[in-house]
């Protein structure tokens, strides 16, 4: 064997050196784009409004800018009342009509199609308002377009109709403990016991500064109708109005981001909406769908029933800013409308529940002037913070309202639960299940405050509680509806509504909503259902506020409402799905699937699948999977990304990520405000390059980079060391002493870190800080542990002083000698 002494070659050296910054490297193997490498390219929403029914066509265009076949996943919202009735996939110049199938079968077909190398797409419902689109085996450089058709009713109240199209699934609080094994979806949060499909409703979130990745087009067209809209108002978007001879159209300005709901309100004269029964026979003529619009009579009697009201305020982190201000205002107004005859309670919750002074016992408190004032004062001091543990306060509220139902003082009172929230939780089913049965004995009013509200959940709660829901997306909107809000807790015009056949043989179990709500003046109720046989009328019966019976016959009008069956099926499926949450059974599941397939309306137990079998584009079906990231919701004071990752910290679910971090970093954590992520990045990254960074922490670090004089820190450390050495040598004093100095050590550490100094002596301070904190948290720290840590802290400070070029005072450890 021959030995040769060779210098490292240029290639070897280059390998050992960091390569020059070269942006082009990032483009390897893909088309370069300034907008990142995201699959969703464009979204178009075309809506046609006819009276109080909206027909929506939603088009999503996906692109593959990567060098390998792609599976694009998009978690997106839809109006929760709208029925998804059609799905088409357009690829390679072909249009493939989607088929509605039982969800398991549809998923299997999609997976097999991918394995076989075919282009395919699937649409699934995760929640009434949250859906997942997957487009698989999209070859490099290709585009695919998917189209969904929806039909939905528009809510109408106080002469005003609302068209709301949600555009972003906001980050949601995910409680619970992580489940073992792989998660069922592609989102960013692993599944938990409280939210077993958390991974399906948690898309990644774009940082501010990410270029707008999706081209959004949105237009609303009004069909000529006797219900002519007036006073159109788009509350969160700038729109252009176009009019020609017959149609009236509203078009969104280009360049908008998908970061808030699109909300269009318009007025329809109240005298145009009248009590009416519309029948729409099926094609085969055997059965049909009825739509009953019931306009409650104007209040005549001034009867006011005494009320028991529990107000529940969500004060979690996502409620910060204008949302909390609006919530406090609305609640204060409602509290002020109570009288001495009423009783009430107020809860504000995040991870814990707070209540003002006079409350707190099991009993409700009489709404005297003094108690009302105390409640309002309490509300005015509530600030947003923490997680959204919603199940417990709601259970507590419902229990408080329904306890002692037979009791003398509870008889004849209205029981009302008011929930003010943005609804950003993932455990909707768990909450409904917990309060569902009791909630049937109270009336639930939900006030949703957000620009990307979880409306589906708040409506489900209100439906379950036979009450109402109001959306407030801005403080201006609250000004407009303030007078309506408190009417939800006033005495209803009609209660105990029942439908009786008067010629029309309606199917009793088919009526939607399943629990007919109480009626308030100004808010018509729409009831749908199925009937058999010939046309006929209905008789309505209810009880007036005064206690006397009210009844009214309605005569049918046949035809003219082709969307009726879809709208009914959607409502029916929602009712059945909610019932399934309360009483899970196989029969119920079968009925849900059957209803969904028969009426061609998507639900949680079915899915639309489309497969293009004409081509094999990716044999083997190996795909690169990407979940489309979504925008930060507008108007969130605390960024949702922070909340989403901070939220589970407060609950058990952090257990999944609670695997031990190495000491130095767990120490650093205690000194790093998590809300300032950039300082964490700074901590974790190499020394910043001055002038090239925009992050706050880096700027800060760059500014202080020149800092070499650590005089004040040296002085401080000297003081600390002397304080430490002056502590009496018994365990209790040392423990107390360590607790007294830990804050100061932390400040010294922070200063050093801010100056970019990460010498081992500095890092050792962090470890000591973490150890002290851990020790203080222990119930019964051992003498040995305390003494050892005291010694280590002393040594750390001494070494730190040596690092700064100072002289450490001599140790007095053996002073008794």
């Amino acid at each position, binding site marked *: 064997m021959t030995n*040769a002494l060779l210098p490292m070659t240029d290639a070897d050296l280059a390998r050992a050196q960091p390569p020059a910054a070269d942006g082009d490297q990032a483009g390897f193997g893909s088309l370069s784009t300034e907008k*990142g*490498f995201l699959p969703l390219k464009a979204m178009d929403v075309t809506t046609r409004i006819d009276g109080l029914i909206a027909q929506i066509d939603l088009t999503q265009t996906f692109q593959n800018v990567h060098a390998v076949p792609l599976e694009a996943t998009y978690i997106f919202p839809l109006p929760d009342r709208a029925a998804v009735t059609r799905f088409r996939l357009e690829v390679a110049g072909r249009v493939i009509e989607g088929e509605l199938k039982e969800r398991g079968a549809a998923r299997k077909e999609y997976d097999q199609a991918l394995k076989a190398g075919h282009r395919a797409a699937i649409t699934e419902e995760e929640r009434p308002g949250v859906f997942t689109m997957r487009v698989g085996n999209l070859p490099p450089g290709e585009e695919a377009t998917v189209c969904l058709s929806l039909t939905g009713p528009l809510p109408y109240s106080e002469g005003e109709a609302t068209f709301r199209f949600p555009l972003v699934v906001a980050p949601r609080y995910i409680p619970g403990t992580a489940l073992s094994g792989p998660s069922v979806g592609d989102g960013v949060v692993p599944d938990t016991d409280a939210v077993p499909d958390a991974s399906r409703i948690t898309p990644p979130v774009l940082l501010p500064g990410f270029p707008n990745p999706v081209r959004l087009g949105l237009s609303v067209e009004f069909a000529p109708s006797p219900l002519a809209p007036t006073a159109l108002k788009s509350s969160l978007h700038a729109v252009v109005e176009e009019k020609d001879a017959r149609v009236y159209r509203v078009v969104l300005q280009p360049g908008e981001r998908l970061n808030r709901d699109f909300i269009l309100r318009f007025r329809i004269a109240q005298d145009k909406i009248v009590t009416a029964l519309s029948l729409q026979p099926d094609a085969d003529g055997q059965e049909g769908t009825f739509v009953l619009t019931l306009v409650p009579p104007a209040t005549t009697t001034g009867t006011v029933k005494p009320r028991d009201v529990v107000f529940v305020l969500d004060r979690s982190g996502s409620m910060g800013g204008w949302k909390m201000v609006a919530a406090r205002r609305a609640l204060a107004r409602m509290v002020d409308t109570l009288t001495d005859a009423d009783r009430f309670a107020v809860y504000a919750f995040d991870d814990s529940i707070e209540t003002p002074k006079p409350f707190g016992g099991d009993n409700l408190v009489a709404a005297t002037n003094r108690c009302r004032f105390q409640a309002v004062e309490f509300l005015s001091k509530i600030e947003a913070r923490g997680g959204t543990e919603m199940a417990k306060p709601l259970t507590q509220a419902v229990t408080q309202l329904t306890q002692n139902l037979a009791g003398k003082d509870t008889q004849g009172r209205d029981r009302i639960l008011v929930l003010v929230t943005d609804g950003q939780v993932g455990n909707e089913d768990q909450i409904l299940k917990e309060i569902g049965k009791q909630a049937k004995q109270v009336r639930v009013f939900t006030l949703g405050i957000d620009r990307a509200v979880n409306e589906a959940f708040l409506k489900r709660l209100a439906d379950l509680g036979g009450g109402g829901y109001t959306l407030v997306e801005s403080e201006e909107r609250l000004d407009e509806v303030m007078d309506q809000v408190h009417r939800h807790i006033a005495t209803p015009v009609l209660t105990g509504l029942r439908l009786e056949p008067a010629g029309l043989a309606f199917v009793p179990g088919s009526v939607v909503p399943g629990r007919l709500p109480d009626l308030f003046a100004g808010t018509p109720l729409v009831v749908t259902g199925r009937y058999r046989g010939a046309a006929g009328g209905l008789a309505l019966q209810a009880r007036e506020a005064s206690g006397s019976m009210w009844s009214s016959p309605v005569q049918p009008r046949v035809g003219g409402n082709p969307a009726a069956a879809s709208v009914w099926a959607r409502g029916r499926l929602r009712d059945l799905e909610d019932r399934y949450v309360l009483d899970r059974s196989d029969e119920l599941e079968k009925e849900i699937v059957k209803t969904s397939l028969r009426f061609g309306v998507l639900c949680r137990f079915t899915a639309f699948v489309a497969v293009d079998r004409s081509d094999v584009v990716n044999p083997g079906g190996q795909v690169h999977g990407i979940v489309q990231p979504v925008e930060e919701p507008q108007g969130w004071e605390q960024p949702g990304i922070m909340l989403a*990752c901070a939220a589970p910290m407060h609950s058990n679910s952090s257990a999944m990520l609670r695997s031990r*971090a190495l000491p*130095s*970093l767990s120490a650093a954590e205690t000194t790093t405000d998590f809300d300032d992520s950039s300082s964490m990045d700074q901590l974790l990254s190499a020394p910043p390059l001055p002038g090239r960074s925009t992050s706050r922490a880096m700027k800060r670090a760059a500014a202080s980079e020149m800092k070499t004089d650590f005089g004040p820190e040296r002085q401080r450390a000297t003081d600390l060391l002397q304080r430490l050495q002056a502590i009496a040598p018994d365990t209790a004093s040392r423990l107390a002493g360590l607790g007294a100095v830990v804050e100061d050590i932390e400040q010294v550490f922070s200063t050093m870190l801010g100056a970019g100094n990460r010498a081992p002596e500095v890092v050792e301070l962090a470890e000591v800080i973490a150890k002290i904190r851990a020790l203080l948290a222990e119930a019964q720290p051992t003498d040995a542990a305390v003494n050892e840590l005291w010694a280590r802290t002393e040594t750390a400070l001494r070494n730190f002083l040596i690092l700064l070029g100072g002289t450490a005072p001599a140790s007095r450890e053996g002073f008794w000698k």
Partner: protein
Amino acid sequence: METPLWTLDELGIRVAIALAVDYEGQANGRVRELPDRRTIRYYTTLGLIDRPAEMRGRTALYGTRHLLQLVAIKRLQTRGLSLAAIQTRLFGRTNAVLRQLAQLPGEDAKPQAAEPGRRERFWNAVPEVRQLVGVPLADGATLLLNTPRPLDDYDLSALRVAAAPLLKLLKLRRLLAADEGTPHTKGESS
């Protein structure tokens, strides 16, 4: 296709080793700059790294892609990029691209067509020479190795980390030119 799965700690060590190659501030040999669970969770929410590959009980497990993503993030950060800019570049990228950005060797990055296997131009071949390779550790210290195989990046970074105590000793004994700007050598003469 079985890919190895690591706990967060194991992943962190791999990240640190991968980064040690050209990372300043590692010279003391203590593997410190590891991602903690908060950072991981934060990056996950941004889609900068994937969700844990799997949960085993309550322990999150990570794979190769997570390693590539974390190292790529750090590489871009040392270039002074903001997190939003990093998100624009990294989100949704394939392993092959990530491997490039992370400057990590591996199958994905290797061009397929080159030498291995085929010895076509055998007539040009010369007898094998076992090379003595010099690895510069610091100014004035080079490690000479008689290696049976070429060094890769992992070898280099591991060597750097392992050499740190030796370098410290050399400095302490003044066998090495003192490195300006490392304040902790000050008090050591006494």
